[in-house]
């Protein structure tokens, strides 16, 4: 059992402490409840570009000095942005706890006057290179983006990926940066988690000292979008620079944490994880028509999604892969799963959870997620309970209810020149 202590500062900052002296380290992790789903069409990619800006200095921390302060004492750090949240984190030798809190407080409270057009222009170029490197210059790089376009209507903010479009990145202005900061970056929109080798009283004193004078925002724009259900399957075939055809699927699910989401998470292990999982065994091992298969679900707050992909072996038509997948899903929906399969899936969930709690940084991140999405950091301790309680029929139910044509979108990537 973890010993978690949770409290709030007067300005609304939620603080979660998890004392653990097994290593002379301290992990500091801030989850701001803002992500690409809070962007508007025309400014896609902004939350992530903003994350880059938050590393480029604040009133008392010079450009690139944030990285220097942390690295020069042996710390590691980064940030990341997704649909629903942005996180910033560092793991430091434990005697530098105050340094980490000072840095995070400075960019939470004293950021907006430190930004310049030059910093924005540089980070805009860096992010455009990130997009080229991860999306545009690699095979299948735009698959997720294409699935999102098919799965969500243009007004719904999961329609675009966190990286955004080149045109929108180009359009982002210094005023946008200021407005975004003033709208979203405030103590009452953040969870600060500290895990590791500290004395709780001292940590509380430091948190109070550095964060308490930052003003709360009071209220934040509500997320008012509703996903429009699909009336029928959305499909496309996309010819690009790939060697082997690949099928990408997205199935809509309830949002993270709902019972069906948990059951779908377990089902992904049964469908595609190791050689004994259904799709691996039949498509890769026995029929040898697929190069690889993968299924996973993402931790999303507004609505849920399951992703499935499979690559055809050279000379195998993607249609053959798709029929084989649908045959296996239909078999599972009708005949259910075995007790052994259920045990293996639960074991995997358990070992993955144990691995996430093993390091201070991953544990702090998980606590931040539970606090941000569910308002309850203690959910990290009870997280596996619904996994343990799941039955074979719960999982077959997912295949029957969600893995059907009217609830999915399909993008077929085929080699350029071979498409009909």
């Amino acid at each position: 059992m973890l010993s978690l202590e949770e409290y709030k500062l007067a300005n609304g900052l939620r603080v979660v402490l998890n004392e653990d002296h097994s290593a002379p380290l301290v992990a500091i992790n801030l989850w701001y409840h803002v992500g690409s789903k809070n962007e508007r069409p025309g400014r896609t990619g902004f939350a992530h570009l903003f994350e880059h800006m938050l590393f480029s200095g604040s009133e008392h921390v010079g450009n690139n000095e944030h990285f220097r302060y942390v690295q020069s004492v042996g710390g590691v750090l980064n940030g990341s942005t997704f649909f629903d949240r942005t996180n910033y984190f560092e793991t430091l030798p434990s005697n530098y706890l105050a340094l980490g809190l000072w840095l995070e407080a400075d960019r939470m409270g004293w950021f907006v006057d430190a930004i310049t057009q030059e910093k924005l222009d540089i980070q805009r170029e860096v992010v455009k290179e990130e997009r080229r490197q991860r999306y545009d210059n690699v095979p299948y790089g735009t698959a997720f983006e294409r699935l999102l376009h098919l799965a969500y209507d243009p007004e719904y903010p999961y329609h675009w990926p966190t990286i955004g479009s080149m045109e929108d990145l180009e359009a982002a202005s210094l005023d946008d940066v200021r407005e975004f900061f003033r709208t979203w970056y405030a103590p009452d929109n953040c969870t600060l988690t500290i895990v590791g080798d500290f004395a709780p009283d001292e940590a509380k004193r430091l948190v109070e000292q550095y964060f308490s004078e930052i003003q709360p925002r009071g209220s934040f724009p509500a997320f008012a979008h509703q996903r429009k259900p699909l009336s029928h399957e959305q499909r496309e075939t996309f010819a690009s620079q790939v060697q082997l055809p690949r099928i990408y699927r997205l199935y809509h699910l309830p949002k993270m944490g709902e019972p069906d989401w948990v059951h779908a998470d377990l089902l992904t292990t049964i469908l595609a994880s190791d050689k004994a999982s259904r799709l691996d065994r039949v498509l890769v091992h026995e029929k040898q028509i697929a190069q690889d298969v993968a299924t996973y679900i993402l931790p999303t707050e507004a609505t849920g999604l399951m992703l499935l992909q499979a690559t055809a072996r050279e000379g195998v038509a993607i249609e053959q892969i798709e029929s084989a997948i649908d045959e296996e899903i239909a078999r599972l929906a009708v005949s259910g799963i075995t007790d052994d399969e259920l045990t293996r899936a639960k074991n995997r969930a358990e070992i993955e959870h144990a691995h996430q709690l093993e390091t201070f940084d991953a544990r702090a991140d998980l606590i931040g997620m539970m606090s941000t999405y569910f308002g309850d950091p203690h959910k990290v301790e009870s997280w596996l309970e619904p996994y343990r309680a799941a039955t074979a029929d719960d999982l077959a139910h997912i295949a029957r209810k969600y893995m059907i044509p009217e609830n999915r979108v399909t993008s077929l990537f085929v080699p350029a020149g071979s498409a009909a």
Partner: protein
Amino acid sequence: MSIDRATPPSPTEPRPYHFPHITRTTLPNGLRILVAENHNAPLVSLRALVRSGADHDTAQTAGLASIVADMLDEGAGSRDAIQLAEEVGLLGAALGTGADWDATYVSLDVLSRNAEPSTQIFGDVTARPTLPEDGLERVRAERLNEILQQRNEPASIAGKRFASLLYGNGAYGNSVVGNADSVSRLTIDDVRRFYQQHYIPNHSSVVVSGDVDAQTAIDLVTRALGEWQPGPEPARPVLNTRPIDASRIYVIDRPQAVQSEIRVGHLGVPRSCEDYFPLSVMNAIFGGVFNSRINLNLRERHGYTYGARSQFAFRRQAGPFVVAAPVRNEVTRESVSEMLSELRRIRTGDIEDRELDDTKSYLMGVFPATVQTASDIASRLVDMELYGLPEDYFDRYRENIAAVTKEEITRVANKYLDPDRVLIVIVGSAKAIREPLGGLGLPVHEMDIDGNALPVA
């Protein structure tokens, strides 16, 4: 209440860090066992290290070592591949096998309550794989398709061409995964012969880390691998390198590319190099961390790339030294030019005190954060065994880094970096970058992704 925000807070007293105690033993068959207890999480990591890897592949058998590694979980003991995966899953374990240039690895991570039956499976996969013929056909087909897919991956193409230009088709020059011709020709006899020659206990080590007591771990490994038969230790292959007489640019044409994948470098040094510590500090300053010169220059000053870095690939024999970055087409020439000028600058002795202090304290301070898990610790012990590091290596790491001086950095930069004799490999759109690259005044050769020279355009 107002506080002084302009001054960074001072640290408190550092708390000591100790690498876990290592218990060592050697079985009568020559197998070395290392155990590091760590009861923070209910997890155990097992690693087997076989001291042969793709360095034993020849031009004809390129890919063999890694194919043999992939074959280990195609059946072991009395189980076929599917039964093996089922059993591993029922124990809440994750099994992995693989080879790199210097060695082959088997890994098994498991919930500690199932350490005992898992160690038996781990032993079967390492010492009693069935290496079935139909397994080879599955692994071969998968490998050939993987090689095919890599033909569209710019980073993979750049790495392969760079290695091939540096080492020819001997050790370190082929790809670990092999090529379509060599992989197509491999036979089950090749696989079984490689296995018999190299997978022997007196050429191997086993590491156990995590939530298990040392004597139990040794007993479990002894039961699983005590009967493994020793054999004559294989000789290490000779490395053939081709000296670079002058810098040259090789453009591998990828007409649709929107970025140029750049590699600039030459031969590096083996892990056993006496200058390992000054070289590590020098490389960290140059391109080993986010705040390194090359990343601050190309990314933070110019916005040319999402990330630039450099690396000495410290292997058992001399791996390459490489500076790498993907950059947009329009700034390809400028990026190469900045890389070369940073290489020249670090040889001049122009090192700031702050730069040196920051980098050394980073390398000294970051170690505990990189060994938080049972699996991290196991990996460190595997390195220790593979490279023959002394028993007190991790305890003395800090003082070895602390001892590095500015003069030593300048000395090793001059001794091991040679900006006038580099290979410059660029995977990108020849049409977009050809003309500007001409401005660098270096010979430019264009080739296809297989390394065949293209006619001058």
